C-alpha cells in the first residue's frame, strides 16, 4: 500500500479546492439571511421560499424541462440510427466523410452553430420558440449520442447479430430484438448526456430562443447581469443537489450491477 504523503495530501486538497470551492461558496451564500451577496447576515432558508414564488423562474424551468426531454429523445433516436449505419453499414461511398461530418459539430464553436441555426430558421420563416430550441438542441446533442452509441457498437460481438439473422430474423427484427437490448445501456447514457447538454445550454439557446420561450440558463444569465440575487444561489444549489443525487445513484447502481455479475460468473465457473 502506498501511504498518503504530505505531497499527495497537498495536491489532493488543492485539486479539489480548485474544483469545488466556488460551488461550496455558492451553496453557503444560498443560506444567507442578507440580501447582499457578499455579506454574511446569518443562516436562513428564506430565499428558497422566495424562489418558489418567483413565476418567471418556474416558467423558465418548465420550458427547460420540456425542451430537454423532447430534444434528448429526438437526439437519441437520430444519434443511435446514425451510429448504427456508420458502424454496421459496411463500406459505402463517402462513409469516412459521413463519419467525420457526424463528429464535426462536437468541435464546432457553439456560437457558429447557434448563428447558423438562427439564419436557417429565419430563412425558412420558422418563428422562434420552444420548437426552434428543441431542433437546435437535437442537432448538436445527437452527435454526442452517436459517439457514445457507436463506441458500444464497435466493441460488441458482431456474430450475435449474425446469429439472430441465422435464426430467422429480418435485419430490422435483429436490430430490435437483439442489438437494441444489448446496446441499451449506451443508448441510455447517450440520452442522459443529451438531456444534460440541453439542460445547461446557454449559447445556442440564446440564439434561437424567442421572447416567450426563455430557458432557465438564459433566465439565470440575464438576471445575474442585473446583479446576483440570493435567489439565484438558492436555485443553483437545488440544481447542484439534483445533479449530485443523480450521479451518485447512477454510479452506485452500476457498481452493484457489475459486482453482481462478477459473482454470478464466478459461481457458474465454480459449479461447473
Amino acid at each position, binding site marked *: 500500500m502506498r501511504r498518503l504523503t504530505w505531497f499527495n495530501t497537498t495536491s489532493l486538497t488543492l485539486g479539489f479546492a480548485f474544483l469545488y470551492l466556488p460551488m461550496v461558496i455558492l451553496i453557503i451564500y444560498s443560506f444567507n439571511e442578507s440580501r447582499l451577496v457578499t455579506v454574511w447576515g446569518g443562516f436562513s432558508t428564506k430565499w428558497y421560499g422566495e424562489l418558489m414564488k418567483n413565476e418567471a423562474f418556474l416558467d423558465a424551468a418548465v420550458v427547460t424541462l420540456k425542451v430537454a426531454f423532447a430534444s434528448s429523445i429526438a437526439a437519441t433516436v437520430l444519434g443511435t440510427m446514425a451510429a448504427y449505419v456508420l458502424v454496421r453499414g459496411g463500406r459505402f461511398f463517402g462513409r469516412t466523410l459521413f463519419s467525420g461530418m457526424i463528429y464535426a459539430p462536437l468541435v464546432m464553436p457553439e456560437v457558429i452553430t447557434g448563428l447558423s441555426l438562427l439564419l436557417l430558421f429565419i430563412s425558412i420563416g420558422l418563428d422562434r420558440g420552444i420548437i426552434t430550441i428543441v431542433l437546435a438542441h437535437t442537432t448538436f446533442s445527437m452527435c454526442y449520442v452517436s459517439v457514445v452509441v457507436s463506441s458500444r457498437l464497435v466493441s460488441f460481438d458482431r456474430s450475435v447479430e*449474425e446469429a439472430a*439473422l441465422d435464426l430467422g430474423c429480418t435485419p430490422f427484427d435483429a436490430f430490435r430484438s437483439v442489438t437494441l437490448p444489448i446496446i441499451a445501456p449506451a443508448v441510455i447514457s447517450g440520452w442522459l448526456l443529451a438531456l444534460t447538454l440541453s439542460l445547461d445550454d446557454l449559447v445556442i439557446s440564446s440564439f434561437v430562443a424567442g421572447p416567450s420561450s426563455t430557458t432557465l440558463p438564459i433566465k439565470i444569465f440575464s438576471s445575474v447581469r442585473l446583479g446576483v440575487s440570493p435567489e439565484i444561489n438558492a436555485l443553483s444549489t437545488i440544481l447542484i443537489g439534483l445533479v449530485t443525487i443523480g450521479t451518485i445513484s447512477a454510479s452506485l447502481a452500476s457498481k452493484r450491477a457489475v459486482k453482481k455479475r462478477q459473482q*454470478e460468473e464466478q459461481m457458474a*465457473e465454480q459449479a*461447473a
Partner: protein
Amino acid sequence: MNQPAVSSTFEPWTDPQETPLISFKSVTKKFGTFTAINDVTLDIYRQEFFALLGPSGCGKTTLMRMLGGFETPTEGVITIDGKDMANIPPNKRAVNMMFQSYALFPHLTVRENVAFGLKRDNMPKAQIEERVEEMLNLVQLQNFSQRKPHQISGGQRQRVALARSLAKAPKLLLLDEPLGALDKKLRQDTQFELMDIQEKTGTTFVIVTHDQEEAMTVASRIAVMDHGELIQVETPGRIYESPNSVYVADFIGDVNLIEGNTKPRGDGKTELFWAEGQAPLVAECPHAPDVEARCTFAIRPEKVNISKERPDTQINVVQGKIHDIAYLGNISTYKVELPNGTMVKAQTANNRRLARRDLTWDDDVWLSWTETAGIVLDQ
C-alpha cells in the same frame, strides 16, 4: 488410427446415383485483391459430418460463412438441396450456424435463447415449449433454463449454442470451431457428444476446425485446405494413410519426410535413392508411378520398427544412432540420426507395464519398414 465405424457402410460420395445436399461449383471469393477462396468445387452429402480443416487464414471459415449466407461468392454457384443460394439471405435458409464465440443473446435466458429461432417461425406456443424442452434435454441443460448466459460455465454456454442452432431442425448445421474455447478433456468428451447428437438428429454437420485430431475424431470426410484451395477431400483414414501431397502428410499427424530421386521398378513400386552409398528405399508411388523425379518419401513414425540387431529383411533397412527419446507413457518416440544427418522418428507402443526398455541414448540401432508402410509423394 481407426476409421469410425460408420464410414465403412456410409459412403454416399462413392455412389454416383446420390445427389449431394451441398454443392460448390467453381466458387471463388475475393476480398478486394485478396483471394480467400480459389475455384473450389465440392459436394457434401446428406447426414455427413464434414470437416473443413486447415491453418488459420486458409479460407475454411469463409467457405462456411458462404453456406450460412453471410458472404456471397465472387464467382461460381453454391446450391443447397438443388437450389441456387445466390440471392437468399441468412434468415431464409434452412441452415443454422453455431458460432465460434457462441454468440448467445446475453439479455435472454437459456430457455429464451433456445426458443428464439422458433418464435420467428410463428410456431404455436405449446409446440415451442415442447421443442425447447426436447432440446434442453438433448444437451442436458434442463436445470439451467432460467439462467442468463453469464450465469453458466463455458462448457454449458457451448451446449446452449448447440441447442439453439439445432432447435429449428435445420437441414444443415454449420459449426465454426465449436470446441475451440474448451479445455482438452472437455473438448474430447464434447466431440463424442457431438457425434452422438449428429447421429440422433440425422442432421448434416459441416465443422470448421484447425485441430486435426478433432477433425479425425468426428468427421466422415475431411477437406484439407490451404490458401483458399482444397488440397485433399477424403475419409480420415485415407487422409492419414494415403495423403496426396507432402502438405497433407505433414499437416495431419506426425510424419518422417525423406527426399530423393525415384526410379520406377516396373511392378508398381518405386525405388527412391536418398543418400550416397545407401541402398534405395522401396515404396508405392501412387501419384506418378512411372516417372523418374525428385520426390519425397513419407512414413508415419509408428510404422518404423526399431531394433538393436539387424533385422532379417534386406529391403528398407537403415542404420542410425539414437539422438533423443521421448517417453509419453503409452508410446515412446525415438529420434534416430541417419549417417547423412537425416532425423527419423520411430514409435513403439509400450504395451507392457514392466518391459525392459533396453534402447538408450547414442545406441546404434536399425530402423526398418515394409514396402507398403510408406508412400512416395511428389513435391
